[in-house]
C-alpha cells in the first residue's frame, strides 16, 4: 500500500522538477551588476526581488557582503511569499536613505486587479473651478476614485502617525498623548454630486473605522448615512486618565460638491480648542469658526496604542477593503488637495462661533500658508511631489517641516481590494543581514503584509526606526512568524504583530514606547534581553485584543535598564487584553521566568495589568498563568503589585514569586472590579510565614508554609478567608486548611 502511494508522489515531485519549477538564486552583484560604489541600488534590488518572486517556486536574492553598504531610497516590495533575502552576515549592510520602511513582505508594488492610475493624482493648482488658491502654483492631489478603482491613503510609521511633535527632530520621544498643541488643516474637494459621508481622515487601527472604535484616536468625519454633522472627533483623557470624546462641530448640513477646508486647533496647555471650516464651489472662502470649547485642566490625547494616519477610511488594514464592502462603497470621489498637521499654534483664538479666522502673526492666510508651509513641527503632503511615480505605483511623498529643506516621508495610496490572504503559501525569509536605516523614528526595518509564513533570523537593525518589525494589518490568520537571533531598536515598538502565530527566540532590543505590541497574536516568546528603555511609557509588552489570537507563552525575559530609572513607565511590565476569537486554545497567557534586572520603577507599577477588550467587546475569558518572578530587592525597584485587574473576565494563577523582601505596596493583586468578582488566585508554596502587609482578597490566596526542616507533605496550607488590609482595623484573615500534598 505504501509503495502504491509513494509512486505517484515521486512522479508528482519529479514532474515538478522536470517542469523546471525550482527555486532560483539571484545575486545582486553578479546577476544585476549592482555596485554600492555607484550609489543607489533600489531599482536593481527591486528587480532581483521581482525576478525571484516571478518564479513559481520563488528563490533567493543574495545580497553579498561588501565594503560599502547597499544603499536604497524607497521601500522594497516582496510580493511573493517564496522569496528569501539572504545576506552574508554583518558584512552585508543595507542602508535605507529614505524615510520609510525597508522590506515590505507580502506587499506588491502594483495590483493589476486594481491598478492605481495617473488619474488618482490630479493637479489641484490652477484648476477651474479652483481647488487651491493662486498662492499655490503647483500641486498634485490624491483622488479616491479614478473612475475605475477606489483608493485611499495609508501613512504608517511617520509623523502623521506618531504625532506632529515627532517632526521636531531630534526631539522624538513622544506621541499624540504628549502633544501640548495639535493643529490639523485639511483641504478636500468633493468631485461627485453626492454628499461626503463618513470618515474623511484620521488616525486609528481598529476594524470599525470610525471614532466609535476604541482603536481610533481622532477623525474628521460626518454621519456615514446622511453626511450631516461633519465634526472633528478625538479620544482624550483627563488628568485622572478618564477617557472621553471631544467633538468640535465643523458643519451641520451635509457637504455637497465643492471644496471643503477644515482647521482644528487644540491647546491642551491652555485648555482651549476651536475649529473652523468653509465650503466653496467657486473661490476659496475664508474659514469661519464653527466651534469653541474649553478643555478641563490636564486633558490630552488618550494614551494611544498605535495606528496609521489614513485618508478616506480609518481601518486596521492598509487595503481599505473589498469594493463590495458597504463602508467602502460610500467612499465618494474626493480629491485631497492639502493636509497639514502641526504642534504649533497658528491662529488667534476666536471668542465665539462665526468669527473669522486670523493668524497669530497677523499674516495673510492663503492655501500656501495653510497646507504647504513647513513651519515648526509641521508635516504636510508635499505640494510639488506628492507622488513618486518613477519609484512605485502607489508611493506618496509627504514632507516634514521645520528643516528648511524639508524631509520626505513615504505614504501609500493603495487600492481598495480584497486581501488575498495566504493565497500562495511558502515562506518569506530574511536572514543574515545588517540593516542600517538612516531615517530614525520612521518606518520599520521589516514590514509583514500578506505573508503566509515568515522567518527572520540573524538580522541586526542599527537605527531606531519607529518599529523594528512591523505588521501592516493584513490579518493573515495566525500567520506563522519565526524570529531568532535578531537585535532591533525602535521608537514605538521593536515588534508590532497582528494576528500572528509567533515563535520568537533570542530577541534583543532597546524598546521604544513599548517593546512588543501584539494584537491578537499567539505563540511563544523565549529569551529576550530588553534594555535601555527610558522612553517606555506604559508597558513593555502590550498585548491587545484582536480578531484572532490564542495561547501566548512568554518566558525568560530580562528587563535590564542598566540601573537607570525609567521616568515614564506607569503601567506594568505586561499589559494584556483577551482576544476576540482565540480559537480552541483560548486566551491563555503564560508568563514565566521574568527577571526585572536593573529597572527602577517608583511609579506604582504592576508586573501584569489585565484589561478587557476595548469597547467592552465580548471575548472568551482570559487565563493568566504567572510564575517565577525575580524583582530586585532595592525598595525603589519594587512593583506595587503582581497583577492589576478590574476585569471579571480574567482568571489567573500566580505562583513562584519570592516573598522575602519583596515589598508589594498594594499586595499581590490590585483588584478594582465588582466585589467578589476577582477570579485571580495566588499560590505560594514556599511562604516563610503569613503576610504582614498589603491587601488580600478572600478566596484568592493560598499559602503553604513548609516545615522548618523541609520534607514532602510537611507544609501547612492556609487560605485567605476574609478580605482585608494589614495596618487597618480590618486585616485579612487566614485559615489553615490542612497539610500540603506529598
Amino acid at each position, binding site marked *: 500500500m505504501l509503495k502504491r502511494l509513494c509512486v505517484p508522489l515521486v512522479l508528482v515531485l519529479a514532474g515538478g522538477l522536470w517542469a523546471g519549477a525550482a527555486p532560483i538564486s539571484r545575486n545582486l552583484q553578479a546577476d544585476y551588476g549592482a555596485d554600492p*560604489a555607484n550609489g543607489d541600488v533600489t531599482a536593481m534590488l527591486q528587480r532581483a526581488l521581482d525576478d525571484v518572486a516571478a518564479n513559481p517556486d520563488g528563490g533567493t536574492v543574495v545580497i*553579498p*557582503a561588501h*565594503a*560599502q*553598504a547597499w544603499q536604497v531610497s524607497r521601500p522594497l516590495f516582496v510580493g511573493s511569499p517564496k522569496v528569501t533575502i539572504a545576506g*552574508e*552576515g*554583518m*558584512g*552585508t*549592510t543595507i542602508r535605507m536613505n529614505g524615510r520609510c520602511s525597508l522590506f515590505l513582505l507580502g506587499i506588491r508594488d502594483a495590483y493589476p486587479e486594481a491598478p492605481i492610475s495617473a488619474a488618482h493624482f490630479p493637479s489641484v493648482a490652477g484648476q477651474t473651478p479652483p481647488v487651491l488658491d493662486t498662492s499655490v502654483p503647483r500641486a498634485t492631489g490624491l483622488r479616491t476614485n479614478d473612475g475605475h478603482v477606489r483608493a485611499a491613503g495609508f501613512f504608517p510609521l511617520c509623523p502623521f502617525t506618531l504625532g506632529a511633535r515627532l517632526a521636531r527632530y531630534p526631539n522624538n520621544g513622544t506621541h499624540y498623548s504628549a502633544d501640548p498643541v495639535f493643529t490639523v488643516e485639511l483641504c478636500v474637494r468633493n468631485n461627485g454630486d453626492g454628499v461626503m459621508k463618513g470618515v474623511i481622515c484620521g488616525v486609528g487601527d481598529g476594524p470599525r473605522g470610525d471614532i466609535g472604535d476604541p482603536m481610533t484616536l481622532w477623525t474628521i468625519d460626518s454621519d456615514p448615512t446622511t453626511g450631516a454633522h461633519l465634526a472633528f472627533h478625538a479620544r482624550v483623557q483627563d488628568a485622572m486618565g478618564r477617557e472621553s470624546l471631544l467633538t468640535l462641530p465643523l458643519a451641520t448640513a451635509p457637504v455637497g460638491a465643492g471644496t471643503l477646508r477644515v482647521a482644528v486647533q487644540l491647546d491642551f496647555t491652555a485648555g482651549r480648542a476651536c475649529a473652523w471650516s468653509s465650503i466653496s464651489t467657486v473661490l476659496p472662502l475664508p474659514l469661519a469658526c464653527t466651534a469653541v470649547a474649553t478643555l478641563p485642566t490636564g486633558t490630552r490625547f488618550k494614551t494611544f496604542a498605535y495606528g496609521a494616519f489614513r485618508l478616506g477610511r480609518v481601518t486596521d488594514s492598509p487595503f481599505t477593503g473589498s469594493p463590495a464592502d458597504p463602508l467602502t462603497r460610500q467612499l465618494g470621489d474626493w480629491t485631497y488637495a492639502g493636509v497639514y498637521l502641526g504642534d504649533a499654534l497658528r491662529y488667534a483664538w476666536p471668542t465665539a462661533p462665526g468669527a473669522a479666522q486670523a493668524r497669530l502673526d497677523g499674516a495673510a492666510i492663503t492655501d500656501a500658508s495653510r497646507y504647504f508651509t513647513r513651519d515648526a513641527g509641521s508635516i504636510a503632503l508635499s505640494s510639488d511631489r506628492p507622488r513618486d511615480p518613477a519609484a512605485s505605483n502607489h508611493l506618496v511623498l509627504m514632507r516634514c517641516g521645520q528643516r528648511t529643506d524639508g524631509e520626505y516621508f513615504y505614504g501609500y495610496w493603495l487600492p481598495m481590494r480584497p486581501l488575498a490572504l495566504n493565497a500562495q503559501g511558502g515562506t518569506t525569509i530574511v536572514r543574515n543581514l545588517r540593516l542600517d536605516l538612516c531615517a530614525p523614528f520612521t518606518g520599520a526595518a521589516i514590514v509583514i503584509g500578506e505573508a503566509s509564513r515568515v522567518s527572520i533570523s540573524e538580522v*541586526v537593525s*542599527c537605527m531606531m526606526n519607529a518599529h523594528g518589525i512591523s505588521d501592516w494589518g493584513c490579518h493573515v490568520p495566525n500567520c506563522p512568524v519565526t524570529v531568532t*537571533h535578531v*537585535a532591533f531598536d525602535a521608537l514605538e515598538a521593536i515588534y508590532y504583530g497582528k494576528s500572528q502565530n509567533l515563535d520568537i527566540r*533570542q530577541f*534583543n532590543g532597546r524598546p521604544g514606547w513599548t517593546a512588543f505590541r501584539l494584537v491578537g497574536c499567539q505563540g511563544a516568546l523565549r*529569551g529576550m*534581553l530588553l534594555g535601555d528603555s527610558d522612553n517606555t511609557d506604559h508597558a513593555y509588552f502590550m498585548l491587545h485584543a484582536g480578531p484572532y489570537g490564542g495561547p501566548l507563552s512568554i518566558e*525568560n525575559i*530580562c528587563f535590564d535598564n542598566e540601573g537607570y530609572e525609567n521616568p515614564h513607565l506607569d503601567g506594568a511590565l505586561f499589559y494584556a487584553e483577551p482576544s476576540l476569537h482565540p480559537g480552541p486554545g483560548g486566551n491563555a497567557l503564560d508568563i*514565566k*521566568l521574568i*527577571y526585572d*534586572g536593573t529597572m527602577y520603577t517608583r511609579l506604582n507599577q504592576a508586573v501584569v495589568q489585565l484589561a478587557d477588550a476595548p469597547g467592552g467587546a465580548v471575548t472568551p475569558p482570559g487565563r493568566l498563568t504567572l*510564575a*517565577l*518572578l*525575580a*524583582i*530586585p*530587592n532595592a525598595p525603589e525597584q519594587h512593583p506595587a503589585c503582581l497583577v492589576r485587574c478590574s476585569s471579571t473576565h480574567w482568571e489567573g494563577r500566580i*505562583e*513562584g*514569586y*519570592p*516573598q*522575602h*523582601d519583596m515589598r508589594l505596596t498594594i499586595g499581590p493583586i490590585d483588584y478594582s472590579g465588582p466585589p467578589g468578582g476577582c477570579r485571580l488566585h495566588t*499560590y505560594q*508554596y*514556599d*511562604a516563610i*510565614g503569613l503576610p504582614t502587609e498589603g491587601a488580600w482578597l478572600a478566596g484568592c490566596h493560598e499559602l*503553604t*508554609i*513548609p*516545615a*522548618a*526542616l*523541609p*520534607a*514532602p507533605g*510537611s*507544609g501547612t*496550607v492556609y487560605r485567605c478567608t476574609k478580605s482585608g488590609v494589614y495596618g487597618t482595623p480590618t486585616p485579612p484573615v487566614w485559615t489553615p486548611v490542612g497539610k*500540603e*500534598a*506529598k
Partner: protein
Amino acid sequence: MMRHLLALLVVGCSLPLLAAMPRVLDITQPCQDYAIAAPGAAHAAETTQAIQQRLDYLSTLSPTGGRVVIPRGDWFLTAPLVLDQGGVELVGAGQDATTLQAVPGKAAMPLVHVAMTRFFPYLPHQPENWVPLAGLLDNTVPAGRYGIRTYTEYPPGGNHLTVKATKSWAEGTAFQPGDAVKVSANYSQITCVCTAVHTASADTRPLQGTHWTQAWTAKVPANVFFSMNPFADGALDPASGRASNLAGMSAYTVELAYVNNSANTARPVAGVCWGEAPQNKVWALYQSDVDSLRLAYNLTLADGTPVSWQDEVNPRGQSPTAIGLYRVVLQFDFTGHRLQAWLRGPNNPTWVRTLNRDLPVGAHFTPTQKASFIFGGYPNGSPYANRSDFDVPYDYTLCGLRMSAVPRYADADALTLRSGGAPTDAIYFANDPGTMGLLPLTDHGEDLRNTGYLVTQVLGDAAGETGEIGYGILWPGAVLVGRQHLRVSDMTLKPGPHWGAGIVNWQGLDSKFWNLTIRGGFYAIGDLPYGCSYTTDIRNCKLSGAHAAVFTDYSAVCLRHVTIDPCGRYGVLLSGANADCDDVTFANPVTHRTEYYLCHVGQTYGGQLQFTHLTGTAPAGSAYPSGGVFDFTHIYPTLVQMQGCRFANLGLDAALLQMTYSRPMAGTAPKTLAITDVQVTGPRLAALVRTDDPELTGVIDAPPGTYRQWVQWLAPAWNATATYAPGDHVVFGQQLYVARTRQANHPPILTGDTDDWRLVRLGLSLRMPSTGNKP
C-alpha cells in the same frame, strides 16, 4: 606568470581601492598586500598574519564589519587572533573541516580574543611601556629583557607632568600649562595635563577633540593581567588534569621584582583575586596608607573555617614607598606550616626576612572558582584594574616574576636557596623544576604593532606544559568598550590542553559562537572577569575546558544544543550571569574530577537561570561530579528553574543542588527555585539540597528515595565550648539556627526562636512527582 600577475594586482590594490574590497575575505585568496595563509605548522606565521590582517581590515569598517573565511584545513597560529571591532566574523568551513590551533610551543595561549581591543587608538601603548632591564637587575640577567611599566604619558615625552591646579573642562575656559582636568572615559577617569596655553574648544577637548594632543598630555595607567593560566589559577593538579586553583597546592612561592617609579601611598602591587571584597583574594601585596608593605591572604583552616590575615612584609620603620627597585619573595609552605617573606628594597642592600610565621596544620589557600593575577592595578579581578583618578597613578616597572609550586628557600633569616647559595636575579628567568610560570620579559615596545598588549609567559613543569608559552595582557586605563555582533563559527579550535582558551570574550554584545568544537584549554569559551557580555549565544557546539567549558561573568548567556565532554572542574561556570541553557549534555565527569556540572558564583548581577533538558551522564560507580549538579551562590535577585533534566550516577557525596549565599554582601536578595521533572538515577545522593541560606525558598519536585537527606545544612554543629557572633550558623537537633547576639554556651532551643537564636524556616516546598507541581 600568473603569480606575477597576481602580485601586480595585489600591489595595485592601493588604499583608494579599499572601499571596493569585498567583505567576505578568504585567507587563502590574495587581498591587498596581505599575507596568504597555508595549512600546516610550518606556515603558522603567515596564517596568523593573514587572518589578523583581514580581521583588522574589517575592523576598520566597523560597525558593519564583515567575514573572514577559513577554508577546510588544519591551520596553525603563532599569536592569538583578535576580533576587536563590531560586526567582524570568523567563519570556518565546518566543525569537521576547519581546525585552528597554536603552533607547537604556544599551547597555553588563548586562540581567539573576541570583543577585545588590540590597539588603543586614542590612548595607545607606547614603546615606553617596555623598559630595558639592563642596569636595573644584576648582571646575571640574560640580555634582551624588558620590564613592563604600568604608566606612560600620551603624547609621549613627559614623565609625571606636574599638576599645578585641577580644573573642570568647559568650552571657553582658559588653560595654562600645568592645569589638569579629569576626563571621564569608559567608566574611568584619565588625568590630562595642559601643555600649552589655550582656550578650550571642542577641537582641543581632552581625549575627544581632533587636536587634543596639541594642548594636553594624558596620564595613562596600565596594569598587567593574567587569567586562565597558572599565575591566576595555580599549578596543574596531575590527578585531575586541571588547575589546582591554588587551594590544592602544598607550597607556593612568588619571586617578584619591581621598580617603584613614583612616591605614593595606598596602592596595590600584585595579587590573585576575584572581586572587590577583601575575602575575594587568594593573596594581595599592597602598600597601605600607613606606609607599610603588607601581604593580605585568605586561608581555609583544617575545619573549613575561612580566615583573612594580613602581615607586614617590610621592616618596621622603613618606607616601602621609596622610589627604587624592590625584590620580594613570598613563600607559603603548607606542608612545613610556615609563611615567610623576604624583602630587598632600595633601602635594603641585602635580603631581609620580614615575615616568618606559623601556618596552622591543614591550612590551605581559600578555594576559588575564578581568579585573576594582577600586577600594578587594583586587585579586584578585573582586567581593567587601573585608572588615573589618583594624582599620582600607580607607576611600577615589573622586572621579574616567577611563581613556583615548591618552597624554594630555606627557613632562615638569610635568603638561601634550598638548592644552596644565595639567589641572583637570574632566578626570575630560570625555568627550574617546580616552576609554574615565569615572565621571560622578552616583549619590547619596538614590536608594538605585532605584540599589541600581549605579555608573554613561559610555563614550567608545575603547569604541566614545560616551556609552552601563554599570554597575559598589559591593560591600559579607559579602554572599556563593548563590541557588537561578533561571531566565531563553523570550525574546530584546539587550545590547551590545560591553559589558555579557545575563545576569550570580553565586553561582547550579541556575540555568536555557533557550530564549534573546542576541546581543551582552561576554558573552551571564557570571559575575562567583569566582562558584561550580553547576550553571548552558544549553540550547536561540542566543548570541553579543564576548568569549565564555558565561563561567563556579569553577562547573559544562552546555550543551546551543546555537549560538554569531558567536563572540567565545572561544565559551565557562571558568575553574576543570566543563563538560558536548553539541551545541554554533560558527559565524562571523571577525567577532570568534576565538582559540579553547573556553578554560579554570586555577583551583583545575574541570577536569572533557566535550565531545560539538561543531561548529565557519568559511568556507573563514578565519584563525580563530587559536589552535585549545581553549586550556586547568590547575591542578586535569583530565579533558578530546572525542568526536564536527567542526571545519572552523580557522586555519592553529591547533592542535586548546593545553594549558598555569599557573605557578607548577600542576605536580602529574593530568590526562588522551581525544579520540576528532574530525574536522578544511580546511587542515592547525600542530599537533595545542601544549603546554608536561611532565606532559600522554592518548590522542588523530587523523585522519592533518591536522597539520603532532603536538606543538608552547610553549617557546623552547635558546640558548647564555642563562642558565637551574630550571624553565625549552627545546626542543632537537625535544624539550622542563626545567632542573634554574641554569646557562648547557650544552646538553641528545639522549639523555635529565642532571644539568642533564630530558627531558620526555609520556604522550601518539596513534592513528590506523582502529585505534580500544583495542588
